[in-house]
């Protein structure tokens, strides 16, 4: 699939720290892309560069084959992490104003706003001031502001922070629906649960550098470690003997006469061979491969990164 966004060797430096160091990324069209990283990693800096709020010191960004240009802002929707609305302005005026800033005509903006108000059953809010709305209602308005101009690229910075569970679910559903309708979604988060659920591809940024990227499936495959969890009824000793040197025990656990073990296969032993070996001596209840969650990978990579960064900074100091 074509890339909607190509980020090429982007670097950004502030007076006393490097926010992004030579980051390159490709974001496929009509995908959901997760930009992951701990706080302060440089996610927001990258997002602001894509939104042309700030410029990169070096490197370039290609949007749909063209060098990123101010005219592109109308095709991008952005929900910042630090978000808010004019407290004293009415909901209707506010959304119309922001939609017009995104290049919609007033009439068109009105039409679309009516659609969204009906969708979220909030027609009666039109004349209400933002400060009169509950936090959850404000979040709905904020979301409408982000998507009203039907952007091809939607960028959500920590979209689930500060949203209540109901609105968070709503946003998840909308993200999936927008993708179905052809939009590309980038969202930055440190909430790994949502990544596996929503993202097709991810990039992990840590200490201003990209340390990992690819599709969620591939990444998890790469990080599989031939680890399996087996629960069985039978003699644990017999089970151990049957395996011989083909596996390493990572964890075992017995309750009543049910054993549950976690093992790592060694020496090229396959899962079929494992099963053949142990079947004669026990009764298998379950057999699962343990695939590392994105969370595990995230923590592992960040810790690795810290070690590397640690030696690096020692070096420079």
């Amino acid at each position, binding site marked *: 699939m074509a890339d909607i966004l190509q980020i090429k060797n982007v670097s950004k430096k502030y007076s006393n720290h490097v926010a992004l160091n030579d980051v390159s990324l490709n974001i496929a069209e009509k995908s959901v892309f997760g930009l992951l990283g701990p706080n302060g990693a440089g996610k927001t800096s990258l997002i602001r560069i894509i939104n042309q709020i700030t410029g990169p010191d070096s490197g370039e960004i290609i949007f749909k084959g063209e060098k990123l240009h101010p005219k592109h802002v109308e095709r991008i929707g952005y929900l910042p992490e630090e978000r808010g609305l004019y407290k004293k302005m009415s909901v209707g005026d506010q959304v119309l104003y922001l939609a017009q800033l995104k290049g919609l005509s007033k009439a068109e903006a009105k039409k679309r706003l009516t659609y969204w108000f009906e969708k979220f059953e909030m027609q009666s809010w039109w004349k209400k001031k933002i400060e009169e709305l509950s936090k959850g209602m404000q979040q709905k308005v904020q979301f409408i*502001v982000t998507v009203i101009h039907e952007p091809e690229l939607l960028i959500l910075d920590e979209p689930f922070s500060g949203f209540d569970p109901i609105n968070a679910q709503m946003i998840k559903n909308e993200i999936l629906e927008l993708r179905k309708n052809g939009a590309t979604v980038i969202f930055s988060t440190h909430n790994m649960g949502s990544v596996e659920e929503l993202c097709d591809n991810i990039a992990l940024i840590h200490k201003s550098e990209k340390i990992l990227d690819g599709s969620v499936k591939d990444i998890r495959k790469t990080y599989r470690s031939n680890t399996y969890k087996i629960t069985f009824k039978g003699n644990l000793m017999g089970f151990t003997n049957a395996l011989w040197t083909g596996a390493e025990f990572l964890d075992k656990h017995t309750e009543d006469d049910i054993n549950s073990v976690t093992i790592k296969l060694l020496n090229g032993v396959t899962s079929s061979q494992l099963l053949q070996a142990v079947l004669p001596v026990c009764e298998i209840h379950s057999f699962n491969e343990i695939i590392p969650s994105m969370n595990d990978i995230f923590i592992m990579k960040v810790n690795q990164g810290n070690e590397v960064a640690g030696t690096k900074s020692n070096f420079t100091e």
Partner: protein
Amino acid sequence: MKKIRLIIGREIKSKLKNKTFIIMTILAPLLITGFLAFMIKMAQSEKTEQNVLVIDDSQLFKDKLVGNDYISLSFSNEKLEKAVGEFTDKGYSCLLWISPTVIEGGAGATKLFYKKSPGFAFQTYVKDQMERIIYENKLKANNIDPNIISNSKASIKIILEKVNDQGSTQEQASFGLFGFLTGALMFMFILMYGMMVFRSVMEEKTNRIVEVIVSSVKPFELMLGKIIGVAILGTIQFLIMGLITFILTTALSALFLKDASAQLKVFQSQQEMVKKNGTNVNFNDLEKFDDKLEMFDLLQKIQKIDFAEVFICFILYFIGGYLFYSSIMAAIGSAVDSEADSQQFITPVMIPLMVGYFIATKTIMDPDSSTVFWGSIIPFTSPIVMMSRITNGVPMWELVLSLGILFVSFVFTTWLAGKIYRTGILMYGKKTSWREIGKWLFYK
């Protein structure tokens, strides 16, 4: 461009919906003219009827000390102790006692007894007369004719004529007070609208909406839209306030100053006559306006003011000065997170404005001093100081130079402010320092 228009529109609309703003626009001129009217009224109505019983134990003042249209004096030879107890019952409002030794002076030689204070104007009236009578008395005691003394007195009025480079002269109004007032008005306007920009910027930052907006427009456009929006708003407000004030003052002067302006005409024709004929004029034929001279002076000065010039300069300097300061205010507004932190940044901006204000006060006394000249050229103070000078006749080249510098400087401050602004609006949770702001200037 379309986006800047949207921003300007929102800025104006949001303020026009603000009740305080509308009330201020209407109330301010009402208050100003109301205050003026009150002052005039006060000055005129300080004349309560006084019926005074005079016990003159010195026997110097009988028939010499006289009343006027609201003060009537009755002399009596009663004993003071008795009269003090009775004068109110007899219908007198107060009792004036003059001691036999009044001519030797000293405190307590004259006493005024009253139940309701007769007011300062009455006291001055009586005191002045008594002093004059004693003065003439003493002259006579030394065989000096008081007429010689009074004829030797001269009153001089200096008429100012400024010589320009072509050698021709022009009579000057030199109405320092008026100039100072326009300067002070300029100070107020720049500060007021500068603060409006400041608040508007800070509001967007603390509401956290600013990042949503700058993802659609360039931060510089947002800042410019705001500044222009408030400028338009300010001009509208100024015109409305000006119009209301004009209508009210015209109505007021028709009410209070009708007699005065008629008298002024007579006075002016007499002045012309004296100028032409010198001392050959028979002064006894002329109407006397001694007590009104000050007011005539004021009215004449007002008549000489070139209001069109003042108005045009005011608008030009307001626009220049406002743009100069408001861009600085916008930059500062972007740097702070809350109103509480703002003081340390606003104060340094206030100082040059205050300096301008003080130089404007100096203009009244010393309009051609070099402080005033430089104050009216340097853009930090020029809008205020130049306005305070304007009625003294400022050479064209100075005006052009000062305005030129002002407009070039505002382009520079706006550019500088834009650099601070676009970084500042996205900085949260960090206490900003001037050092920090300095660094922002160099971010790409």
